[in-house]
């Protein structure tokens, strides 16, 4: 079993990231992007800076300009970014699409995209979810029919994270079988300019970049196929597990910050002539939140290290982390609003941004109940 403690290098990375976030990425940035109805929902300039700091390339080999590090390191950076809800496209670009290419893509595909992804110049997004699929990765209705020497893709993908403005998409489509079959799912690399592909920005409660991908006979050549035809589910599952762990790291940062802000408020808000944090009714709830967050931290550290090591029970640990982080993120965010009282209900105050992001994160890649069911399945009951 790996050590559940940060190495010196990881400590250093955490400090660099915390300093960067403190000076460059306040929550006010998220508000400004929202108020401007920014189509991208994040800052390309800041993304480029993050790439220059080496963060975008953390889980990519040095041959593509990456750092050759693992998810334990990426998690440290994502936790720091999560503290101020930084909306840059790590999950979509670095983890989902990037890792799909790295794990299953051809050398030509990797060479064409990964160096530009790592340098922050190319944006990739990942389109698997559909209206009927909920969290079930196996449920793919979008079809990819053979046409000449390539494929024609038709269907609709929703909740494509950072889909608006992406240069290309990794799309899950069915080359054979029925809608819920495990076999017959294939992954394709589809450039944004492909005729028959249309991307429509969605506005969700956290105002981050999400999109609908309309595919109407979008034609791609044979070499757009990522991995083997009909065998895409394993890659899909593997990269979504990585993305869940990465999302949990972000959630850990966000819930820690929401809690810290609430704690500060409890110590400084005076009512009845005393700090409201002196009331036992609030103290015990604060202590409960602290306990839950500590357990989240252990679960996240355990999950990313198990994934890096390829442990047999990594999937189970990913579910432990996501179930915990989903419930705790919502607990902390709801309690944060309640404990802030009236001011917490105003749009002017920042605590509401934490609540909205927590909700989206909770209902991405499976909520707590879904991951408990997955744990039960993996344990054979």
């Amino acid at each position, binding site marked *: 079993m790996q050590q559940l403690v940060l190495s010196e290098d990881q400590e250093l990375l955490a400090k660099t990231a915390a300093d960067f976030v403190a000076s460059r990425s306040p929550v006010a940035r998220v508000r400004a992007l929202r108020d401007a109805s920014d189509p991208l929902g994040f800052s390309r300039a800041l993304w480029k800076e993050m790439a220059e700091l080496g963060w975008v390339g953390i889980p990519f080999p040095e041959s593509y300009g990456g750092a050759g590090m693992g998810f334990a390191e990426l998690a440290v950076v994502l936790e720091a970014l999560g503290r101020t809800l930084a909306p840059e496209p790590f999950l979509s670009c670095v983890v989902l699409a990037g890792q799909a290419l790295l794990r299953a893509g051809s050398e030509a595909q990797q060479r064409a995209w990964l160096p530009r992804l790592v340098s922050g110049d190319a944006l990739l997004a990942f389109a698997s979810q559909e209206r009927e699929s909920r969290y079930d990765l196996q449920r793919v209705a979008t079809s990819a029919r053979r046409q000449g020497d390539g494929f024609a893709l038709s269907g609709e993908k929703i909740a494509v994270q950072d889909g608006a403005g992406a240069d290309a998409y990794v799309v899950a489509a069915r080359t054979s079988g029925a809608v819920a079959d495990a076999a017959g799912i294939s992954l394709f690399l589809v450039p944004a300019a492909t005729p028959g592909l249309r991307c429509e920005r969605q506005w969700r409660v956290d105002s981050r970049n999400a999109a609908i991908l309309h595919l109407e006979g979008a034609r791609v050549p044979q070499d757009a196929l990522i991995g083997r035809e009909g065998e895409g589910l394993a890659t899909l599952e593997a990269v979504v597990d990585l993305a869940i762990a990465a999302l949990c790291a972000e959630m850990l940062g966000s819930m820690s910050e929401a809690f810290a802000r609430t704690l500060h408020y409890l110590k400084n808000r005076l009512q009845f002539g005393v700090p409201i*944090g002196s009331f036992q009714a609030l103290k*015990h709830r604060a202590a409960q939140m602290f306990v839950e967050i500590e357990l989240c931290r252990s679960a996240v*550290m355990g999950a990313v290290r198990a994934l890096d090591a390829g442990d047999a029970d990594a999937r189970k640990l990913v579910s432990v982390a996501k179930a915990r982080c989903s419930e705790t993120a919502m607990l902390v965010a709801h309690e944060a609003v309640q404990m802030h009282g009236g001011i917490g209900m105003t749009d002017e105050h920042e605590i509401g941004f934490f609540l909205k992001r927590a909700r989206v994160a909770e209902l991405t890649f499976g909520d707590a109940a879904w991951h408990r069911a997955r*744990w039960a399945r993996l*344990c054979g*009951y």
Partner: protein
Amino acid sequence: MADLEAFRSDLQRFLAQNAPDAVRGLVVTAEGDGNWGGRRATYDPPEMKKWLEVMAARGFTAPSWPKEYGGGGLSPEETKVLRQELAAQKLPPPLIGFGLEMIGPTLLRYGTEAQKRQHIPPIVRGEIRWCQGYSEPDSGSDLASLKTRAERRGDHFVVNGTKVWTSYGDLSDWIFALVRTNPNAKKQEGITFLLIDMASPGVSVRPIKLISGKSPFCETRFDDVRVPVGNVLGEIDGGWSVAKALLGFERNMIADTFGTVGSARSEKRGSRLANLARDHGLGAGDALSDAVVRDEIARCEMDERAFALTVQRSRDAARAGHQPGPESSIFKLYGTELNKRRTELSVRIAGPQGLGWEGPGFDDDELLLTRHWLRARGNSIEGGTSEVQLNIIAKRVLGLPD
């Protein structure tokens, strides 16, 4: 590292030659199982006595304690190897109890040279069994309000009062007790930590029956018990800090007990709760037929796993040289609440078969479910209630104002 491997192979040889076959594979199933030692020790199987003797001779009953007092003098790495080898060879600990876990470490920190020489070697050899005299009938969570008096008469104290929840008081040889030596001082400042030989005239012990039935708990009375002044651990009137240090050791022991529940190793035997459900009509095939029960089992197991990871994180941080982090403050609270949830869920899974008290119609495991559920209610009361733990976290860790 080479030294460590040499230590391991020596140890393997030693264990192979000296461990009696009869003790291999013994598992702890009930509260109080295992070898607690003491003057009234009973050894089951009888070979347990030899196992204790061969291990104690090398100080392996207290592996990390200094050699000069009979301990093993092992480094943390060697202690870990010893634990691994015992587990690998399915050997039970040769000795357990409050001497090793609570009063021993406290004596090593606060004891005089004479006290260490008097008390530590008999603990290591399992000759003296200790119990704890903290709580009183009128002093539960407010421990510092304790009233048991110790009045100075020359070179002795005369002790009068009643201690309650003295686990195994009826089987113990010595008791470490908190007594009031200065009734006029602030409540925490008039308390002394006293070591009392339970064979002294005036000590009487009465067992307590719990809602779960027979229990190790006792009430221990002191009527004009004479105790030499030399038996004070730490300073007279300065016992509160000693008492708190010992509570820290006690919480470590509790974390050890509960933190292993959800480890990867304990899961390899399959889901015990799911098997319990299958045995009680909730599904014959793979998936359980009751989705709610399935969800509750998963929640319980996943929380146990997260808790085990937290215990591991704390240990890894300590080994890496970090100060104990805030995570250690949650062990008592979360570990006991988890155990309550598991035992509670087990009874509900067993349904009508979870209702047995004794007699026909229930197998032994089913009868234990009932008892464990009832007994576990006490987990979040003994050793500091959950509410007190939340107060401690709010104050010490979060810095919330009084």
